[in-house]
């Protein structure tokens, strides 16, 4: 049983939170996240969701409230983006270090300056080494489903790390699609209430006193780091397992990556978020109209990074064009670096091309994607990498040089 509804990405996230029967939600308003917490506030006000909603005095406060609530055993959700996520930065490490299974929706938005509220992935990229898991979604349906999955992944004994569900600001957060909203009872079967066990969870409980967040000398610290690293590695299997279980109940699966028409592809475009949908359209058109052997590799799980899956999907291609909505100043782009690192020791690997696109909300159009495929095709023919990094859609007339 389910209901098909026309809802926005933000509403889909809120529905995922409602269905996950979250105990505490704490957040601070920021565009384009705001409507997520407005919807949740309505659910709480109407008794549809029996949770405590705490509107904190800042995102810093919101993450601190989440940490406090999670530490006493509550299932906790928050949402933010951009400056708000940057303000949380210090506490994001604390949440991961305390191994608290907090779920956060990030409506990806650029970071100031210049000031703007449009989509790119700079905000979440700033948190990629914090220990949080990061999943990038492509559709409203995936946003809803991933929020539910996220709790199950984060709360898994093998993982116990917080997780970000990243959806492109405005492009997805404010776009409405028809979404299949699952029944609460079925979600309950999939995701039972959070029952922390003090033998392996951080749990602040008067009946079983524990000191957490203590000082740690060099003789012990690296082992904590190692355990977090190991948990991220183990999370790959957990994400797959949870996804399969989800598929058996709801008929939808997403995987760590999605390799779209990649089996025989000579040119593959790798990307995250909504850009993937556009690229799939272009791939269909190019295959149909021109017979080009092209495919799309959607990186859904960015942390943990699915090295083996990327290699499996793309190693036989001639060219892998990596398209980023974020920049790593002084070197290139984060996704490119990660993909290059995944492939560096492989005996068979494609030529890698590095593209920046869609910064600060600039549209990534089918034409842009076409340009990327054309450039990639040229490289398949010549074997030459013309540019270390290509800026797609850059208006050189504005540069003044």
């Amino acid at each position: 049983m389910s209901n098909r509804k026309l809802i926005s990405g933000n509403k889909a996230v809120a529905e995922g939170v409602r269905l996950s029967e979250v105990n505490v939600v704490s957040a601070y308003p920021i565009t384009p996240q705001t409507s997520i917490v407005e919807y949740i506030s309505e659910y709480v006000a109407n008794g549809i969701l029996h949770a405590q909603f705490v509107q904190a005095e800042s995102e810093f406060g919101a993450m601190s409230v989440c940490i406090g609530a999670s530490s006493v055993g509550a299932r906790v959700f928050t949402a933010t983006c951009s400056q708000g996520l940057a303000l949380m930065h210090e506490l994001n490490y604390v949440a991961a270090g305390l191994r608290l299974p907090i779920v956060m929706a990030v409506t990806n938005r650029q970071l100031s300056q210049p000031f703007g509220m449009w989509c790119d992935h700079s905000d979440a990229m700033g948190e990629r080494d914090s220990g949080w898991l990061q999943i990038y979604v492509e559709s409203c349906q995936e946003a809803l489903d991933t929020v539910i999955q996220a709790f199950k992944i984060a709360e898994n004994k093998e993982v116990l790390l917080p997780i970000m569900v990243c959806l492109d600001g405005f492009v997805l957060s404010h776009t409405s699609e028809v979404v299949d909203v699952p029944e609460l009872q079925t979600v309950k079967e999939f995701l039972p209430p959070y029952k922390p066990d003090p033998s392996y969870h951080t749990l602040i409980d008067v009946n079983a006193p524990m000191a957490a967040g203590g000082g740690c000398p060099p003789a012990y610290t690296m082992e904590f780091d190692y355990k977090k690293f190991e948990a991220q590695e183990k999370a790959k299997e957990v994400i797959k397992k949870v996804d399969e279980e989800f598929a058996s109940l709801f008929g939808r699966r997403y995987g760590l990556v999605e390799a779209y028409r990649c089996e025989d592809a000579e040119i593959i475009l790798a990307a995250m978020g909504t850009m993937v949908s556009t690229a799939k359209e272009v791939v269909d058109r190019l295959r149909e109209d021109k017979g080009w052997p092209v495919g799309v590799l959607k990186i859904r799980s960015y942390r943990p990074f699915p090295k083996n899956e990327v290699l499996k999907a793309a190693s036989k291609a001639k060219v892998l064009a990596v398209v980023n909505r974020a920049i790593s100043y002084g070197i290139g782009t984060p996704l490119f670096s990660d993909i290059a690192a995944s492939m560096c020791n492989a005996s068979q690997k494609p030529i890698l091309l590095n593209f920046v696109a869609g910064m600060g909300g600039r549209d990534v159009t089918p034409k842009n994607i076409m340009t990327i495929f054309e450039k990639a095709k040229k490289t398949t023919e010549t074997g030459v990498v013309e540019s270390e990094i290509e800026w797609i859609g850059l208006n050189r007339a504005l540069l003044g040089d």
Partner: protein
Amino acid sequence: MESVMVSGHRACPGCGSILALRHALNTLGKNTIVHIATGCMQVSIVGGGGFPGGEFPLVIPTLHTAFETSGAVIAGMDAGLKALGKREGITLVAIAGDGGTADIGLQTLSGAVERGHDFIYICYDNEAYMNTGNQRSGTTMLFAATTTTPVGKVKRGEIHLSVKLKKDMPTIMAAHGVPYVATASVAYPTDLVKKIKKAAEIYGPRYIHIHTPCPYGWGFPESKTIEVARFAVQTGCWVLYEIENGKLNVTLKVAERKPVKEYLALQRRFRHLTDAEISQIQKLVDKKWKELGLP
């Protein structure tokens, strides 16, 4: 009274703060949860746990997260326990130093208090960042020398807008309309314990600000902590009062106020003071007493 603070803390000899917390936490007893902000007491209490020879001196659940988080994390615990139906019978205590309260943590504290979460907040005030070695904070007293307000050829100690001795946290909290605000001193444990007991009976945010001298930062012998704290009260530099639902009650009316000079003279941080500076402090203390309607 059942002790919840046992042996094993790593505070310095003569530390006023750890003594104040021992009184406070032992008064609150076992069904208490502590969040402690980064600072002297965090290092002394939860900081020791991982170190060879370090023990954990509390038998109650304790969490440390970061420096400026005390108000918000305790608010999260309040919300979490309420959501789970487990709030009944548990006292939540947020502990932070003067820096963690008046400076970096003021925002989360203000938010938590304004939203009306149910917790006791204890500020141990040693009037500077003592954990990092005595740098000035918002509650450093006027003219005090610290490592970031040294006495040099051009500048002489802590110079702030000299209409106040120090940032007045209890008044800031009272302005939030919290049901219970109190000041206390480690030199007056009976008064301190009474206030903690009273706070424990009240619902909502409660704020207790304890004056806790630091031998190393202030420059006095480790054996003189209580004496220095007592002189702060006897000279009127620190006033013991409570504000219950907006109503002020001075809990210790010093019969004959001693000149501030006697308090200042006990401490190295004030040894550079000129007579004019001492008289400026005296005037500010007199003014404060007048505002409180005291002789």
